[in-house]
């Protein structure tokens, strides 16, 4: 018991939780934006891979880090555009199109990687984002290491939480986005473009998802390797429901998952001898499912989610 408590009170545990949560924050915000407009984006897993690869490749080829981040976001927006065209004006099944985009984006990313680096066996490294060592603040006890020794991308993720919240709740655009996810006819009747809003939301959301991927290769690690996204995209899809499509709760959900994950690593080193390691690997997912069951009951789905809308049909 004392072991567990000492884990929960250590600053390195909370720093790790926030670090693990960062890609999830990007992903869950992106998925939330898409779904608020009425489009489920199961392309998320592949867009993570594409973002991770693009950002890393740009930097490896000599671009500055922030240009790599931009390249990743653009790649994400591009795959988002494919998904949006298929599901919004063409009205195809959002599930099928999303899974298709995941497979496409993953394959394109691996293919590009292999084409650019045909002969390497061990993944080449780049110099990733370094922890922002903010004078004074970084030296604060507990808060310093947890908050102020993270990389710039973690701060970008936290900024995006505020940005998405601000757009959704404080701007006319956000009101229109929420309306189009509830009743596209309401938006159409006011002379706004249902297609424009949805395509825009899916592209912006996909760009955020790609940033989640870019964090993996440009901050958490310094190389791109196969299978590194490892289901993080799917976790985000579940976390959106946990978050009831609210940015603030999305941050909470991502942090909770990050904490579970960081906790299991530490617990493993403490009591690893008694319990097989796989149990610990399962723990965050099982706890997520439990959290989801508790939080998602009576979830207030965007009413138009998954429903295509066609101009001139009412």
């Amino acid at each position, binding site marked *: 018991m004392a072991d567990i408590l000492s884990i929960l009170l250590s600053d390195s545990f909370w720093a790790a939780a926030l670090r693990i949560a960062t890609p999830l924050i990007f992903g869950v915000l992106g998925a939330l934006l898409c779904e608020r407009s009425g489009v489920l984006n199961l392309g998320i897993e592949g867009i993570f891979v594409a973002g991770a690869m693009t950002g890393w490749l740009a930097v490896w080829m000599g671009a500055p880090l922030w240009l790599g981040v931009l390249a990743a976001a653009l790649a994400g927006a591009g795959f988002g555009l494919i998904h949006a065209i298929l599901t919004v004006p063409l009205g195809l099944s959002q599930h099928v199109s999303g899974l298709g985009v995941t497979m496409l984006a993953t394959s394109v990313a691996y293919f590009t990687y292999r084409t650019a680096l045909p002969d390497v066996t061990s993944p080449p490294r780049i110099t990733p984002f370094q922890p922002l060592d903010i004078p004074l603040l970084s030296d604060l006890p507990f808060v310093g290491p947890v908050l102020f020794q993270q990389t710039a991308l973690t701060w970008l993720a936290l900024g995006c939480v505020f940005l998405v919240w601000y757009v959704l709740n404080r701007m006319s655009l956000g009101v229109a986005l929420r309306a189009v996810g509830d009743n596209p006819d309401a938006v159409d009747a006011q002379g706004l473009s249902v297609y424009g809003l949805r395509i825009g939301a899916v592209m912006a959301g996909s760009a955020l998802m790609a940033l989640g991927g870019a964090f993996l290769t440009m901050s958490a690690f310094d190389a791109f390797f196969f299978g590194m996204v490892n289901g993080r995209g799917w976790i985000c899809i579940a976390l959106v429901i946990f978050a009831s499509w609210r940015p603030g709760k999305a941050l909470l959900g991502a942090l909770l998952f990050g904490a579970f994950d960081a906790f299991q690593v530490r617990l493993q080193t403490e009591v690893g001898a008694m319990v097989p390691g796989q149990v610990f690997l399962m723990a965050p997912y099982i706890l997520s499912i439990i959290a989801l069951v508790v939080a998602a009951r009576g979830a207030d789905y965007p*009413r138009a989610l998954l429903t295509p809308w066609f101009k001139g049909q009412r």
Partner: protein
Amino acid sequence: MSAPVLELSGLSKRFGAVQANADVDLSLGRGEVLALLGENGAGKTTLMNMLFGHYLPDAGHIRVDDGQGLRDLPLGHPQAALSAGIGMVHQHFTLAENLSALDNILLGVGSLLSRRKRGGAARAHVEDVMARSGLQVALDTRVSRLTVGERQRVEILKALVRNTRILVLDEPTAVLTPQEADSLFANLHQLAVDGLSVIFISHKLREVLAFSDRIAVLRHGRKVGEIATAEADERRIARLMVGAEAPQVERAPMDPGAPVLELSGIRCEAASARDRLSDVSLTVHAREIVGIAGVSGNGQAALAAVISGLRAPDAGEIRVGGALPARHTPAALIRAGVGRIPEDRHHDGVVGSMSVAENLILERLDGPDVQRRGFLRRRQIDAAAIAAVEEFDIRGPGPDAPVRLLSGGNMQKMILARVFRAAPKLILANQPTRGLDLGAAAEVGRRLVAACGDGAGVLLISEDLDELIALSDRILVMVDGRLTEAPRRDRTEIGLMMAGAAA
């Protein structure tokens, strides 16, 4: 009439085989309340959707006063109609339920990149409009928590805050209680006094007479009359609405046989009037066609659901061929001898992706000619399908083609073939000719009469009075979930009863 603010001239629209509107002229004065009256399918909603730019007319012009005289309105663009000052309140509300009333009202006002308007000038403007119009709503309440009447006020406010000068309301009172309807019209009257021009669609004679300045009547897509309300009376409007021409074919009456369907004291409780039945009793005999007239949404759907076994009544008794069905399920009622021609043939009548042959056996999958020990007897099924296609003249790619490829008329013939092959005691025909062209509709009528001659009883639910008068032996009128026998086969009389006036 004061100077016109709106002129429609020669508007026509055709959907496939159906001429929804033909050469309609209409004009509207400033501050005038015009009622657009007509039966279902008369083309009222289509006309208004053309005005608002949802549909592109096949022919005709719309001219709107933009302050400096009448100008042509670009057709087919809702945005153009909005900026010309035309506001429309649809029958089905276009509200986002996850937003507050205020957010809905201000949706799309101003730039999307501006701050969300929640206070200050925008809110003051909405409150001012509320005060002037008398339409009060709690602005900060989510629409999902508002009542139907409040939601409608939000819809109207949505139009008014955009400086609408012409307001179109599609059946505004269909969902309101009588009290809500009265207060709505009082508010509209006030707005008209202040200069708003209003067009409202209705088929309720009472409110049309009480609240309009002028009445235009549509029938079969054409404007058949226009009267100042002051000179109108119920009888005259009803005659315009349902037409005055003589019924086409009088059917030789046959000797009715034993009762095949007896409903006694059927009652269904429901929140909305369209699903409610109060104390419905009805007998259909063999070799008899009984027609049910009425404006749709008065309980016909509930009656059809009870007779086809989809819904168990809360009280009352149903007998088919003199016997109580074992259970009140569709399967039991089919076995008892009910053949169904459903109202929405695409949705309830066929499985579009399955072939004609497969659809023909859907109601009798356990028949000995369909299966043996659970295995389909393909050869028999195909032979029967070919025979049915021949006999009922089902035109299309063939018995193996998916049903969704058939036209509406041929799909209906396929359903008739399925019903008649089971030799039902009672045929429930719910709007059997809706959406069909004249030839196909006449064919359906002939088949029903023929089945009747073979000893079946037919319950024909229809909104088309011509059809009912031509085919039925007796006509009952359904209003508000109640059935009343029409004393005479007199279209004016029936029209009055349909509109809820005492016969």
